[in-house]
């Protein structure tokens, strides 16, 4: 295999993509086929450059249906190299969380790319259905009713509102932070003009089928189809067409598109921000909210995000809901929050949920331990100012705390009297194809054993009582200090005071009836 040089005239190292000759490539079986091309496994991994292709990682070859100029695709492929040179931490995030193209494949015609090489999704981003082969763990599994996923495919996913779901979105926000260059301490990166030499990447189709997830060993995402991403660069040597956002409108996925983008128009940086907010709602809420058609229809959108009852312990988070609202707004598109704001907000949320370690593990797995800086708009305890809450006129997101209902899903078999593939052993049908009631989700609890009641010891018991007493008081006070949860906090505080009063009475009774006579008073 040999490297192929690209045409001269590219001023910065970042503009020079790594190219591989198609003749040197040995491809295996066809893995997938889409509108833009075919994806094959690469049998002979090219070893051309240490650190990128020489890592031993598995690669796939995407053969483009329509050949493209190398110059046209160069900014995308060179983006990672440039990022590596200037921001190794951000490059590590991109490498860990996306199938970013690492080389172009050129044919006989000089300067014409016939495809590109991309890393293959690691094994942790695949799952197996109950009765099937390996499948990509797309975000669709998390944006659906967990009970339905368990019944239909035998795939167990965390319940809505669970910290691992938040951590998955956090991993996505950290990746977008690297792509968009926000929150890395450079004011030059905050504006819409890309920094010279380090472009900003726009994926444009962050749909459920393109975002993979994993929870084992760490909550993580892996974004596919990155060869269709566009990179805006302000490099003076880059051709003028590269300096704009996007080459042409890429195909987007219905229901995972930005309603503010007109048909035929290339999605830009705000679109990826819209989809990040949408991913939060759908992944954390475990539901496939139908939003876009209504937003296109005009009118204010009110989203009730159903969350588990356990969220009542969290303080009110108007800024988090503000992030959702601003992300989804089709009125104030430029005001959509940056991925850094999201990352900082989700770090705070995970901290409130008692899962700060998850955020740290996500950062470690992405190879960049630095916490997100928040893009200067998401005020937090890290010393930045806390600006006034920004609201948008067209979207309102409201958390609704509910206890989960029992599952109503069940498997369906052939109609009675009809033989199935497995013979008469197939399940029978209840109703006309409607799912029959299933055996509900299994509640996992520690019961009394978790409190150590089986062998408490007086000191341990008193200690736990004191701990519970303190936690109840702290929670009531925190809620009273939270905007929007004050009534709940006040109610809890009254209950705590009543309990305090009862405890005091019992204590006085014990002192008066037992302790006083015992000591002779």
């Amino acid at each position, binding site marked *: 295999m040999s490297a192929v040089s690209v045409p001269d005239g590219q001023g910065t190292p970042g503009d020079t993509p790594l190219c591989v000759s198609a003749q040197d490539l040995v491809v295996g079986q066809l893995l997938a086929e889409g509108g833009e091309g075919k994806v094959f496994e690469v049998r002979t991994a090219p070893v051309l450059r240490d650190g990128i292709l020489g890592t031993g990682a598995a690669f796939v070859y995407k053969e483009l249906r329509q050949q493209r100029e190398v110059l046209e695709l160069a900014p995308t492929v060179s983006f990672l190299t440039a990022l590596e040179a200037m921001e190794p931490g951000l490059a590590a995030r991109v490498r860990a969380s996306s199938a970013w193209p690492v080389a172009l494949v050129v044919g006989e015609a000089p300067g014409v790319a016939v495809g590109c090489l991309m890393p293959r999704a690691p094994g942790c981003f695949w799952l197996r259905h109950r009765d099937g082969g390996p499948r990509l763990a797309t975000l669709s599994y998390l944006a659906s009713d967990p009970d339905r996923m368990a019944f239909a*495919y035998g795939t167990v996913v965390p319940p809505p509102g669970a910290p691992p779901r938040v951590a998955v979105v956090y991993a996505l926000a950290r990746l977008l932070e690297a792509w968009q260059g926000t929150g890395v301490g450079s004011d030059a990166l905050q504006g819409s003009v890309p920094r010279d030499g380090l472009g900003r990447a726009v994926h444009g189709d962050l749909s459920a089928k393109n975002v993979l997830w994993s929870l084992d060993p760490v909550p993580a995402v892996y974004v596919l189809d990155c060869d269709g991403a566009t990179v805006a660069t302000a490099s003076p040597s880059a051709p003028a067409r590269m300096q704009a956002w996007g080459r042409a409108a890429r195909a987007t996925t219905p229901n995972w598109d930005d309603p503010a983008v007109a048909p035929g128009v290339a999605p830009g940086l705000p679109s990826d921000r819209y989809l990040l907010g949408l991913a939060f709602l759908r992944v954390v809420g475990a*539901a496939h909210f*139908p939003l*876009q058609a209504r937003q296109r229809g005009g009118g204010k959108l009110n989203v009730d995000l159903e969350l588990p009852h356990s969220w009542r312990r969290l303080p009110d988070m108007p800024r988090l809901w503000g992030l959702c609202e601003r992300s989804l707004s089709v009125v104030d598109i430029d005001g959509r929050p940056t991925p850094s704001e999201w990352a900082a907000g989700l770090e705070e949320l995970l901290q409130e949920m008692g899962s700060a370690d998850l955020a740290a593990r996500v950062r470690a797995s992405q190879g960049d331990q630095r916490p997100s800086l928040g893009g200067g708009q998401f005020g937090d305890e890290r010393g930045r100012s806390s600006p006034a809450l920004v609201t948008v006129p067209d979207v309102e997101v409201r958390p609704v705390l509910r206890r989960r209902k029992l599952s109503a899903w069940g498997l369906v078999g052939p*109609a009675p009297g009809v033989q199935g*593939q497995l013979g008469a052993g197939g399940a029978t049908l209840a109703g006309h194809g409607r*799912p029959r009631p299933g055996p509900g989700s299994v509640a996992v609890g520690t019961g009394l054993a978790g409190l150590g009641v089986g062998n408490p010891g007086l000191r341990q018991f008193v200690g736990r009582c004191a701990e519970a007493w303190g936690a109840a008081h702290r929670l009531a006070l925190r809620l009273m200090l939270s905007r929007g949860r004050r009534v709940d906090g006040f109610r809890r505080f009254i209950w705590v005071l009543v309990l305090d009063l009862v405890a005091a009475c019992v204590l006085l009774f014990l002192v008066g009836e037992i302790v006083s006579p015992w000591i002779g008073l």
Partner: protein
Amino acid sequence: MTSNYVGTEERYAVFPFYLCLDVSQSMTGEPVAQVNRELPAIRESVGQDPAVAEVVRFGVVTFSDVARTVLPLSDLALVEVMPTVEVEGRTSYAAAFDHLRRLIEVDYQTGRLSGERWYRPAVMFVSDGRPTDPDERWREAHRRLVDPLWRRHPNILAFGFGDAVPDVLAAVAENKPNRAFMATEGANPSTVVPELMAGLVQSIVSSSASAYTGSPQLVPPQLPNMQAIPVDELE
């Protein structure tokens, strides 16, 4: 400004598909064996993709002397086993249309009770022969099925091979353009049936994607060995 409320429990409207299969004697042998081999592929392609399965409901009806529901309208993700079909008697189109008329109404009402919203159902009608019942009989049943005054009347895609009659298939598809397809002359059923089933999957998947946009379309399949039956545009 008007308000649109969206909640976690809100679902997308579903796109019901009915596969209506001819199981008359002429399907004996390889054609019916091919159908039985390919039916699980529909479950595999549609049901095993959470995003597609969410908006697609799929049922299978067979017809010969009588029509039967062999797979009630179902969420394919929750279908444990696909049914197998067996060859029976003659080719009564009337039985198929009457059965579909009743079935769609019952399914719609049942779905409505469970909170489902429906897009207009689609019937994929597959036959390898000409109707054996009197012409007026099946046309009357067909008229009831596609009666525009019946609000649940389905869109019909018709596919034919073997002894199927193009004009009849075009009539089944209401003479609408790109809705009726006939296998090219001399095409082997063992080739046509798998391609047809693959085309149906492609049609269902593409149609389901459009369902998410709020403006669903019944996307006709691309079939290499089949040609769309040309129909006149009505004035």
